[in-house]
């Protein structure tokens, strides 16, 4: 039976903010640029197609612009391991991965591959890294892999895609009605029952329901519903005082175990800073346990009292915290297990590690410890292409499958990105797919460059010619300069026509708006982008003053009496002597983006 690891403190929720990476993870990588097979060919990618794409990257000179990674996504492995090892699907990749890696490296490019922290890959092959990290790390090093994208399907410890829905038992605490403290110091066994509804509740996921607390855990961030900003994971905190030092008590919890999103069976209990319990509370309700034939898992059990646990309280005020941070901790640990093996083999490896857990466990909080970037939502398109079909992308959709859904979330996540951490990843570019026109593709590129997203081309490059509109977008040197600026600062939204409070923190999903983004660049330059997110033309005066920008960025933005202003899409250069940057109209889905250089 697979069980989550006992965890070291360095991957606990309490360590998420300490800024420390695991296993010597190398940092200071700018956002990765390259081509990934998924949006172009789905699981139908082949060795022949990949070689043609590598050829096209060099033929078009995209490598000189920074596009260096060629990444095989899902669909390249045999459906099962061979002698415990990963192996190439022989019809699609007849020469094997090392030969393809050599081909790509010989062109001066870098080679990327794909796997999954679960038991299977999303396309079904039973070759996930879960429990096979050591041998897989060896394979990847042998194959000369420079980039790894690792997915989250069939994950055994959360209710992820294709996982058992009852795995929610791992990721949420039970409903809590009360705790009971029994004084064991003087054998009096004096009992004190503390109702949960009177305790302190932190975070925003849990809530009071009748006489109990429910939802102790964190949001599922796969869909676009929940904001990435603020404390998302909840804790239930009892404040208790003790009259004597090291006073001995027993604690019992009145709980209702479940196996549904919001109500689980795994509880963490901390007394002051010491974690004293971290396990399933009800030993019969464990998803991985085999059921009797015909027996169905119950979604919710009746309330009951737990077995007693012995604790010690210090004299004076104490906190007893009930929580379950395992949704985030387990996922971090699973990504860390592969990193550990890669680092064991080659401690100096610079493999770019891309977490693709779809924002489910709020990786913006923890992924910097092990990865270089982290997906923030489910996929940007589910209508991927195949050989001869460019696939389909959308500007707006209710779910994650559009440029604007991804952008709406990423644009307020600048606090999580940086050279010391890594990058928010709103998924691969859809430039060149059906469904998006030239203007939308240009703005898509601008958005991804301003928010320091990895730039992964997702189209069949045989459709691109030097100088055509697709080429002119993906090869725009000023846009790429913004994305690859050495400071590595993600743009901040400094203004939105729909803002109510703080534009850089507020999660705005209505696209009927204009956003203004500012991004500091090296040498005192900065980029400013006016983005019409809506599908309607906007005739509106939007003006941002340098003083307002400096309020948000301080000395990262230099004040001058004159500025040189270059429109990155027209190349037009003008001079600004007012320090006020303004536009009066923007076409639907268009952007006006400038690199501003203080000159006096």
């Amino acid at each position, binding site marked *: 039976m697979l069980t989550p690891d006992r965890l070291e403190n360095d991957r606990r929720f309490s360590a998420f903010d300490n800024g420390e990476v695991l296993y010597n993870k190398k940092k200071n990588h700018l956002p990765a640029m390259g081509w990934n097979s998924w949006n172009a060919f*789905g*699981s*139908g990618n082949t060795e022949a197609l990949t070689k043609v794409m590598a050829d096209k990257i060099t033929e078009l000179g995209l490598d000189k612009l920074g596009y260096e990674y060629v990444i095989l996504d*899902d*669909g390249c492995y*045999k*459906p*099962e391991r061979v002698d415990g090892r990963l192996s190439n*699907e022989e*019809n*699609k990749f007849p020469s094997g991965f090392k030969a393809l890696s050599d081909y790509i490296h010989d062109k001066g490019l870098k080679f990327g591959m794909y796997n999954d922290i679960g038991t*299977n890959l*999303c*396309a*079904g*092959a*039973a070759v996930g890294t879960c429990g096979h990290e050591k041998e897989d790390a060896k394979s990847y090093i042998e194959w000369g892999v420079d980039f790894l994208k690792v997915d989250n399907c069939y994950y055994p410890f959360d209710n992820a*895609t*294709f996982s058992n829905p009852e795995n929610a038992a791992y990721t949420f605490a039970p409903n809590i009605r009360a705790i009971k403290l029994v004084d064991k110091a003087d054998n009096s066994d004096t009992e004190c029952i503390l109702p949960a509804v009177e305790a302190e509740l932190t975070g925003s996921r849990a809530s009071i329901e009748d006489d109990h607390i429910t939802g102790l855990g964190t949001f599922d961030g796969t869909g676009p519903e929940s904001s990435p900003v603020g404390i998302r994971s909840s804790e239930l905190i009892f404040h208790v005082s003790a009259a004597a030092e090291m006073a001995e008590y027993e604690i019992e919890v009145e709980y209702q175990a479940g196996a549904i999103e919001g109500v689980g069976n795994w509880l963490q209990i901390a007394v002051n800073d010491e974690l004293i319990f971290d396990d399933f509370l009800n030993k019969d309700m464990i998803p991985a346990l085999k059921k009797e034939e015909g027996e169905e898992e119950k979604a919710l059990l009746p309330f009951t009292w737990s077995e007693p646990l012995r604790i010690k309280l210090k004299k004076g005020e104490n906190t007893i915290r009930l929580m379950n941070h395992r949704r985030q901790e387990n996922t971090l640990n699973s990504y860390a297990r592969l990193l550990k093996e890669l680092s064991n083999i080659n401690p100096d490896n610079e493999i770019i590690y891309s977490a693709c857990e779809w924002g489910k466990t709020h990786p913006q909080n923890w992924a910097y410890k092990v990865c270089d970037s982290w997906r923030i939502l*489910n*996929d940007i398109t*589910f*209508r*991927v292409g*195949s050989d001869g*079909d460019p696939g*389909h992308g959308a500007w707006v959709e209710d*779910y*994650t*499958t559009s440029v604007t859904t991804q952008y709406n979330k990423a644009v307020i996540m600048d606090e999580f990105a940086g050279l010391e951490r890594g990058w928010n990843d709103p998924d691969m570019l859809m430039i060149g797919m059906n469904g998006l026109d030239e203007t939308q593709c240009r703005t898509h590129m601008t958005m991804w460059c301003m928010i320091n997203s990895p730039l992964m081309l997702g189209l069949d490059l045989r459709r691109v010619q030097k100088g055509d509109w697709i080429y002119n977008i993906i090869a725009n040197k000023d846009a790429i300069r913004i994305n690859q600026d050495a400071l590595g600062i993600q743009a901040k939204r400094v203004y939105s026509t729909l803002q109510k409070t703080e534009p850089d923190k507020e999660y705005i999903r209505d696209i009927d708006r204009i956003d203004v983004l500012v991004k500091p660049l090296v040498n005192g330059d900065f980029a400013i982008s006016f983005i019409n997110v809506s599908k309607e033309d906007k005739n509106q005066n939007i003006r941002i003053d340098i003083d307002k920008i400096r309020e948000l960025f301080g000395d990262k933005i230099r004040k001058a009496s004159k500025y040189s202003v270059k429109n990155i899409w027209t190349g037009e250069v003008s001079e600004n002597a007012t320090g006020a940057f303004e536009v009066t109209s923007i076409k639907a889905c268009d952007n006006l983006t400038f690199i501003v250089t203080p000159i006096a």
Partner: protein
Amino acid sequence: MNIEAFIDYIISEYEMAHSDKNDIDIDHFWKEVMSYFSEDMLGSPVNKKSAARILYAFSRIVLKLPNLDWIRAKKLRDIYECRVCAEAIAQMYERGIIDGVGPCIFGINDTMKAEELRMAVDKIVQINTNIIWSL
């Protein structure tokens, strides 16, 4: 009917219905779908998402059917739970080869009965590609 038997059934039904069959395409289809499933999975019952993936591969590789735009399929809430089968589900749903369990749910993990699988195969092998192309 398990997944392996379902794949064999599609090929045999198509070969019976089309004397002008293209063996290269059928071989390509077989290799493609065999790459989706491990040995264990081939012996499992066919759920709706797997049926959709197999039939979609058949429609592309053997029947050369173009993709339809997503109209009704956009309303299927569970389609986004499967990134590798979303297009397949949408295409089979739009063409009426596999129905949903309601107007907004496809039922991606529901097991299909042998009779339902045979009906889906009947529908797809009978598609006249000339008519579809001219639509």
